[in-house]
């Protein structure tokens, strides 16, 4: 119930601030407001998930929080290679989520080890990716992926839409 209220309040606050920006009453970037709302929703919801020991909520809300952080970085700094940002974001978010799953259940050491491995490899890649020379390869892959993305989304959507849940 608290989560429901939190979601509703976040929507309303985002709407009000966006409306103020839309009518030029508030002169800031819309992306900044979106990121701040995502961060605050993610933070509060993660706290709630820990209290309720709900793993799925934990994953979703921490992902929302990290997406907010990425938006904040994007709105504050000028990112030259936004495609590369997706690459690192996936690694960072996955690693962080696995570590959070370990915090939720300390008996599962596998989450800690795998989370740390993903985290470290993302940091290592951040500094070495240009030297290795796969940045061009990543860009090419993403360009191809962008062409097929709509078809992939529609296909996955239709598959899940008409799939019978046992």
């Amino acid at each position: 119930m608290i989560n429901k209220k939190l979601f509703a309040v976040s929507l309303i606050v985002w709407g009000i601030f966006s409306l103020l920006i839309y009518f030029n009453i508030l002169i800031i970037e819309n992306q900044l407001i979106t990121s701040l709302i995502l961060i605050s929703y993610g933070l509060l919801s993660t706290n709630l998930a820990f209290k309720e020991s709900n793993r799925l909520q934990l994953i979703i809300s921490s992902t929302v929080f990290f997406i907010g952080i990425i938006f904040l970085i994007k709105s504050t700094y000028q990112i030259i290679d936004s495609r590369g940002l997706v690459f690192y974001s996936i690694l960072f978010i996955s690693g962080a989520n696995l570590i959070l799953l370990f915090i939720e259940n300390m008996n599962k050491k596998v989450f800690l080890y795998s989370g740390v491995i993903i985290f470290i490899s993302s940091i290592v890649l951040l500094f070495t990716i240009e030297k290795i020379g796969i940045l061009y390869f990543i860009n090419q892959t993403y360009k191809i992926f962008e062409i097929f993305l709509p078809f992939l989304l529609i296909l996955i959507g239709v598959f899940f839409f008409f799939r019978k849940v046992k």
Partner: protein
Amino acid sequence: MDEKNLYNSLFDEDDSIENRSSKKIGLSKSSSNVIIAGVCGGIAEYLNKDVKLIRFISLLIALLGWFPFFIYLILAFSLPAEKKILSNEEIIRINHENNITILAGLFIYLGFYTLLTNFNFSTNNFVFFENEFLLISSAIIFGGLILIDKIKLPFLNYYNINFIETQKNEKMFLGVCRDFSNYLSVDINIIRTIFLIFTILTIGLFAFFYFIIYFLSKADVVKQ
């Protein structure tokens, strides 16, 4: 023929609890199969069609722009709510199914949106997201309606239900996705799809992590 059967045969009335609870007089909102307000669920029950088909058609109509949303809102407020009593298990099953429908709907909608923008179609007033003012005002209205409990989004109640699906899925390769889906109580296909997309976006690096997680979990089990 006993007295009750004689009465039923004369007046064509079946007095069972099931029929009493699901008997429909006309078009009404569904109270059991709800994603936003239960309009599609109600139409499906009235027409005796699969609710997924009605929702899919509604989703395609929604691509036309803002007008279908107003019709939906009018129907949501004007139609009477049907009273149906369901068991807890049934509510959990429907909620779970509806959550997947929301996810699938988002995928389809975003797919069409990116398809239109990729081919440089003018999406002004065609796709809902393109109209900034409408999107903002809808967010405020939606937030308000959720707050006063007029809109029931199942994924928000999902957290409150301690949903544990006993998945008897067979492992496809080493069973990492299956173990994750069991641990998080999520549909295995969602985990597999996310994993597949992440593998493509990290140019195969995620497949490497798959093996790492598998070997670490094996070592963890042996240790225990």
